[in-house]
């Protein structure tokens, strides 16, 4: 069964350092999402891509966060510099982006970030 891949699974860093997360969506999925999930809360959308284009980054803290999906396949989310409040699970999801199931989102296992 096709799955969304993410790496690393766990990341510990010190504040002010740079971190990067990688996501490989399900093959053929045009839409890719990055979410942040704070412990005990639901996922919150950070950025949404349609192919290689950003369609929504309104909740992305652009002073320190950046995201790219250069070839419209895999994606990278970067934080520089990391702050203590960035400690969370970072989830990637993908969606077919078309057809009757276009709203269905499939999530990866996430990257657990701890900032010390």
């Amino acid at each position, binding site marked *: 069964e096709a799955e969304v891949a993410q790496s690393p699974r766990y990341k510990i860093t010190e504040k002010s350092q740079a971190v990067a997360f990688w996501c490989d969506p399900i093959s053929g999925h045009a839409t890719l999402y990055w979410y942040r999930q704070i412990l*005990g809360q639901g996922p*919150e959308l950070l950025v949404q891509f349609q192919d290689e284009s950003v*369609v929504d980054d309104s909740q992305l803290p652009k002073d320190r966060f950046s995201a790219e999906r250069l070839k419209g396949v895999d994606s990278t989310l970067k934080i520089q510099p990391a702050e203590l409040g960035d400690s969370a699970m970072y989830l990637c999801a993908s969606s077919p982006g078309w057809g009757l199931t276009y709203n269905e989102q499939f999530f990866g*296992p*996430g990257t657990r970030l701890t900032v010390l």
Partner: protein
Amino acid sequence: QQQVKQSPQSLIVQKGGISIINCAYENTAFDYFPWYQQFPGKGPALLIAIRPDVSEKKEGRFTISFNKSAKQFSLHIMDSQPGDSATYFCAPGGDYKLSFGAGTTVTVRA
């Protein structure tokens, strides 16, 4: 997330019992109503979803009931099993976006 309210925050049920989780939303433009299941350390997984043209959908032990006029939908877990112990999120949405509730932690006692 303020436009989606999920209740209860947590619940404990005996094995074989029924778990009921409710979700209220404000955005009348939503046209897709899913429930996601998440185990500790894992990403959410789609459990069951409904579209607004039907009032109920059943898949195995899981049922969604949808009340469009009240802007509410609920998840019923019948014959709850210990393996159902997880956090459940409603995530109504549309137009390629989902709005997640805060989650309900379900514990099934053997």
